[in-house]
């Protein structure tokens, strides 16, 4: 077996589109999204599940895609940052990140958006504490935490900040 990649077929739905792929069993979902599907919005960073840059939604829940094998996603529905905009228009959450200056270098932004999107789906009216807990798995080395929480609050139900 040495030198021969061990592969398996999988079927996943990514941002609404069904994809049948053959993936290496030791490749993560992150590897397959970026390298096989060329969806490079999802970022590779710490690779130990601490920074959240690789956050995507799998069957409605956010996960670190660096800690999940692509074969484990077989049959799953996946949403990446590329799936947030509709018909070329940014989602209100994405627009709020721009308006509030929540993006500096931008590397953590896709993960922050996915975690915020999941938080708002589960809790449309989060408190500041809820946002801090919901985003605790997403690090921003530029330190835009205040602007990020402002952006999330501004699109929360009844949020006017």
């Amino acid at each position, binding site marked *: 077996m040495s030198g021969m990649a061990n592969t398996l077929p999988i079927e996943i739905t990514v941002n609404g589109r069904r994809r049948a792929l053959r993936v290496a069993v*030791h490749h993560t979902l992150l590897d397959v999204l970026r390298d096989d599907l060329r969806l490079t919005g999802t970022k590779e960073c710490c690779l130990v*599940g601490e920074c959240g840059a690789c956050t995507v939604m799998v069957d409605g*829940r*956010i996960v670190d895609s660096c800690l*999940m*094998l692509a074969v*484990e996603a077989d049959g799953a529905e996946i949403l990446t940052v590329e799936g947030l905009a509709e018909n070329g228009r940014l989602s209100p959450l994405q627009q709020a990140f721009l308006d509030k200056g929540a993006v500096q270098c931008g590397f953590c932004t896709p993960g922050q958006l996915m975690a915020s999107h999941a938080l708002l789906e589960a809790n449309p009216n989060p408190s500041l504490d809820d946002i*801090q807990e919901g985003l*605790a798995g997403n690090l921003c080395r530029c330190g835009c935490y205040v602007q990020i929480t402002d952006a999330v609050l501004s699109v929360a139900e009844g949020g006017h900040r």
Partner: protein
Amino acid sequence: MQTFVYERPATLAEAVALLDAHGPNARLLAGGTDLIIRLRDGSARPGVVIDVKRIAELHPAIREDDGIVTIGATAVVADIAASEPVRRHFEALADAAAVVGSVQIRNRATIGGNICNASPAADTAPSLLVYGAVVVAAGPKGTRRIPIDDFFVRSGVTTLGPSELVVAIEILVPARSTGAVHMRRTRRRGHDLASVTLCCSVDDTGVTRLAYGSVGPRPVLVTDETGVLADPGAPDEAKAAIFERMFAEASPSKRSMRAGPEYRLAMLRVLGNRAVRAAIGRLEAKGRVEA
């Protein structure tokens, strides 16, 4: 990451047969939040990875029948934190599940993985010890039940046999009215491994159970039946003497990065005091509801 053979058994019998056939060359994959890191850094190099998440017998994840709550091994900690029967009967386990890692980690990490890694800092371990949980394990000779206090050996080592896997955790709903709480110290708010973990329960007969972790090779369970800790009016000196006896087994590593041994031992006493007060508060709150 080095490649491997990926197996995804659909039944418990298939999983046991795979473990039996491959022995130490196989590793079980549940949530993957520990194993995938180890596969990537090369500290685990199995020839076969057995994904247990689609085994029929491990579903449904959490159920309650006849005074026993059964949590399937692959139940993720986010679901345990949100589970109605867990929150109702085992509030300290719900507390603990809610602080594991981050949302992303809690959506993947399983209770079976948490106890099988047997990290001394495992968040779910102290509450499972306090509630007297039983680990249901399946192997080539059938199923057996292991009291959780007989399960942990040291970091990464349990009393599971080489071809056994955890199927579920069973917890008996306490017969007595009980208040319990889980507490931890971390270096930062949010996502961190604990420097000290502690769970305390107090029941209406005055029995106090404490379990603590991250201060030795495995989490430790101790009981105070004198009623002193459970008595809010007992003098502090009397309580301190009991805590000293209960914490005698704590032996924190001098080499850990997260906190020095002096800090951990000091915080164990702080958490002990806080947790006893909080557990009594929860017990009294239940009394008011029932009265």
